[in-house]
C-alpha cells in the first residue's frame, strides 16, 4: 500500500502482482532474431496478433507443409496448391483476431484450407459443365508413396475416381475422415457442417465405394452389397 501511494497517479491503475507471478518481459516481447520455434501455437498466435512478424513466420514454417499436403490430398492433385496455401495464410493473417483459442490454430487452418479447396473444386466442376476446364484429374505421382506397389496405386486411383463422382462436400468429408484420420467432430468442424451431415456424407461415399467394389476388402464389400440387395 505504501508503495502504491508513492507511485504517480497514472500508475495507480496498474495491478500490482508478486514478482514470482509476473511473466518476464522478454516472453511477452521477444527480441528480433529470437528462436520462436520452441513456442507453442497459442504463444505464437498471441505474438502474431501483437504484430510480431517473426511469430507469424514461425507459424507459417510450422504449419504450411501440413496445409500444402492437406490441399493436395483433398484435391487429388497439386494444381494451384501454391495459391491455395498463399490465400490460406493471407486469410489467417487477416483474421487472426477471430481465433479464440490459439492452441487450435492447426484445426482452424485446416478449415480454411478445406474451404478454399472446396471453392476451387466447385468452380472447376461448374466450368467443367460448360466445357471450360473441368476437373484437373488425379496426380498419382504426388498422391501415392513412391514405394507403393502397382496394385496399391490402382486401388488408390479407383478410390479417387470414386470420390470425383461424389459431391465435393462428400469427398472432403470422406477424405478428412479416412485419409486424414480425423475424428468425426473434427471433420464436421473443418468441413463447416454438423456432425450428422458429416456422417451422412461419409456414408454416402462409403456406399459409392462399396458399390464400385473397388476397396474395403473385396469379399466384405461384396457381402455387404449383396446382403443389401
Amino acid at each position, binding site marked *: 500500500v505504501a508503495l502504491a501511494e508513492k507511485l504517480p497517479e497514472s500508475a495507480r491503475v496498474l495491478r500490482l502482482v508478486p514478482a514470482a507471478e509476473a511473466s518476464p518481459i522478454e516472453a511477452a516481447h521477444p527480441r528480433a532474431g529470437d528462436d520462436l520455434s520452441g513456442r507453442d501455437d497459442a504463444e505464437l498466435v498471441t505474438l502474431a496478433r501483437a504484430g510480431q*512478424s517473426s511469430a507469424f*513466420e514461425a507459424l*507459417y514454417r510450422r504449419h*504450411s*507443409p501440413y496445409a*500444402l*499436403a492437406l490441399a*493436395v*490430398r483433398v484435391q487429388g492433385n*497439386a494444381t494451384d*496448391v*501454391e495459391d491455395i*496455401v*498463399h490465400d490460406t*495464410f*493471407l486469410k489467417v*493473417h487477416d483474421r487472426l483476431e477471430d481465433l479464440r483459442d490459439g492452441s487450435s490454430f492447426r484445426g482452424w487452418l485446416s478449415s480454411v484450407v478445406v474451404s478454399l479447396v472446396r471453392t476451387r473444386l466447385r468452380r472447376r466442376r461448374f466450368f467443367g459443365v460448360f466445357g471450360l476446364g473441368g476437373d484437373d484429374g488425379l496426380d498419382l505421382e*504426388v*498422391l*501415392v*508413396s*513412391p514405394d*507403393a506397389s502397382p496394385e*496399391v496405386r490402382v*486401388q*488408390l486411383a479407383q*478410390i479417387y475416381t470414386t470420390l470425383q463422382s461424389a459431391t465435393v462436400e462428400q469427398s472432403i468429408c470422406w477424405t478428412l*475422415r*479416412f*485419409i486424414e*484420420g480425423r475424428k*468425426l467432430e473434427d471433420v464436421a468442424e473443418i468441413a463447416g457442417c*454438423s456432425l*450428422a*451431415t458429416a*456422417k*451422412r456424407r*461419409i*456414408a*454416402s461415399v*462409403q*456406399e459409392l*465405394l462399396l458399390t464400385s467394389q473397388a*476397396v*474395403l*476388402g473385396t469379399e*466384405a464389400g461384396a457381402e*455387404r452389397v449383396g446382403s*443389401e440387395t
Partner: protein
Amino acid sequence: MTSVPPSRSFAADLGDRPEVVSEVNSYRDVAALDRVWNRLESRRRRSSGPRPWIQAVAAAALLCSGVFVGMEFERNRVGPSPTATVASEVIRTQNAPTGRVTDPRSSRVGPQRAKQIEETNEKRARRSERRVARLLPPDGLTEAPQTEIPAEVQAGIVEVVVDASPARPEWVLLSERGEYAAAFQRLDEAGGFDGVLANGSSEELMALADVARFVGRQGRAIQALRAVTDRFQGDPNAPLAAMIIGNLLSKAGDAQGAAEAYALNRRLSPGGDFAEDALVREFDMAIADGDLARVERLRAQYEAEFPEGRHLSDMRAEEARLLELSESEATESEAGTEISAPVEARSNKVRSDAPTVDDSSASAESGSP
C-alpha cells in the same frame, strides 16, 4: 438426420478405413512454400506502407514538383538575353524608318500587300515580344547565359528577321536609324565605301546606297546599286535597286541609262509590282528621246501585259502625238522641242500616281529627313 438406412448402419466410425489409404503420400515442396512466404512478405510490406490515396497524392506532388523544377531549369538554361536582344532588334528593325526599303518583300508587292505585310509583321513582333516576356526572368537580363534561341521563339521571329546577326556594322545600324551622315563617317571603320562596295552583302549595299544618296553622293549610290544588280541578280533587292538606278539616272538627265535600268527591273522581276511603272517610265524615256519605234513597241507591250492599265490611254495619246509630230517633222524641219512639254507633264503625272520608289518616295520610305 442420417441418411444411412438402419439395415445398412455401419460401425460408429462409419465403416472400415481402406488399408490402401495409408499409402497416400504426404506431399512436400519446400521451394513452393518459400515462394509462398516471399509472396506473403512482399504483400505484407506493401500493405504496411502508406495508404493508396496517400501514395497517389505523394506521386502527384512529386510529379508537379518535377515539372516545376524542369521548367525553372529550362527557363534558366534558355537564357533571356540573346532572345531579348534578337527579338528587340527584330522589332526595332521593323519599326525603323528604313524597314520597308530593306524588307526584301517590299520590292515585290503592291501597296495594299505591303500594308498587310506590315500589319502582319507588327502582330508577329507583338507575339514575339510576348513570347520573350514569358521567357524572361523578372530580373538580371544582362547576366543570363549566352545560349541558343529556343525553337519556339525562332519559329515566331524567323520570318521577320531581315538581318539580325549580332555582328552588324555600326554604320548599318546608324543608317537604319536615319543618321546617314554619321553612318557615312563610320563607313571607314568597316573598310571604307569601296571596301563595303566590294565585299558587302545585298542588304549592306542597299544601305550603302541609301547613305550615299542622302549625303548627296548620287554617283556612289548608283555604284552601290549597280553592285546589287550585278552581283545579286537573284536577290529580292535587285529589282528595287534597278528601279532606283533608273530614277537617279532619269533625274540626272540620262534618259538612255534610265531606260536601261527600268528595262533591267522588268527583266529581273517580270511580274513584280514595279513592272508596270518601270514600263511606263521606259516609255517616257523613249518619248523623251523621240524614238518612235521604241515607243510603239513599249506601248504594244504595255497593251499586251496590262490591257486594263490606267496609263494606256495616255500612252496611246503620246504615241499619236509623237507620230503626228514625226510626220509634221518630215514636212517641217523643227519639231523636237514641241513634244517635250506635254511629255514632261504626263511623265510627272505618272510619277506622282505610281506606287513607288522614286527619290521622294524612297526618302519617305527610308525615313530620311
